[in-house]
């Protein structure tokens, strides 16, 4: 199911990125909050969080990857 896989990939990526920069506890809280949310909300929340914490310039690299995950799944649909 492409929608579910997109959500899983976004959640995995969020866990990995937030865990790397803000610690696993923060990543767990993020996953906990967004586990029942839509991929669009997960993506928006993650971008917002990374831009706020790392700054827009440094977050760019991760945002590119987030958009890639979303794009790959859209094409798979």
């Amino acid at each position, binding site marked *: 199911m492409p929608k579910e896989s997109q959500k899983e990939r976004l959640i995995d990526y969020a866990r990995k990125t937030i865990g790397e920069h803000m610690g*696993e506890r923060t990543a767990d809280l993020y996953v906990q909050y967004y586990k029942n949310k839509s991929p669009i909300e997960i993506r928006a929340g993650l971008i917002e969080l990374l831009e706020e914490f790392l700054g827009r310039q440094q977050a760019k690299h991760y945002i590119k990857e987030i958009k890639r995950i979303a794009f790959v799944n859209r094409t798979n649909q």
Partner: protein
Amino acid sequence: MKPRSGTYSIVIACLIFAATVIAYVARSDSEAWFWARNILYVLAPVCSIVAGWYAVNVYGLRNRHAQSIMFIVVGLLLWFVGEVIFTSYVVADVDPFPSVADIFYVLGYPFLLIGFIRGSLHGKKSFSSKEKLELVIVSVLLAFVVIYFGVYQAFNPMLPPFDNVIAISYGIGDLLLLFALLRLVIFVQRHTPGRISMPWSVIYFGMLTIFVADILYAMFSSAFESGNYAAMQIDVVYVLGYLLIGVGFVQLGALLKEMQHFIRKNGSRSKSV
């Protein structure tokens, strides 16, 4: 309720710093002031170590940044042991240089170096041409100052070779630490206006303050050791440096706590603002 540890840390640091300034400006030879000065001087590195440990705990020990901070904390801990031994010598009215304290001071440098280099290595790895140019210019200028005061001025042909090795090790340690700190400047520049940049800026200024204190100590060490009051004010600069590092670490931990708080409530911060 929003976590407030960041604000408390600033208030506590200001109080300790104000008390230190008063204790050093008092210029009293009474035993109470003497002890107050020495206790406050040793308290400052303790604050930075406790604050560093707090940041490590908030990140979680398995995190890469936490491990970098852990290296910095171990470096500060070694410096703290050095400060305690140094202060004990001063209290006992024994010349503290060279002594076992110097071994701990020098041992602290590699840990601090690893910590700062690891801490500033993430995100984009390579430097742009502008950053490289900035790094080269600032490095050459600062290297000149450090080599002159920390190595050339520190060398005394009248002293035994071991004393000279110890004296020069500080200069070399500071020089290497300075290069690590320059990486941190670039890290901060790249992450501005991201919120992670602020705590690291404070930590950077703390290390820079200690570095300035080291240069001042190298310049006025003989006046310092002879108990000259004006030269003893260098201790206030050291205390300020340690407190700034402590505030930076608490700010870092508080920032993560704040992020966790807002994620728990709203998923991200700005939704609740």
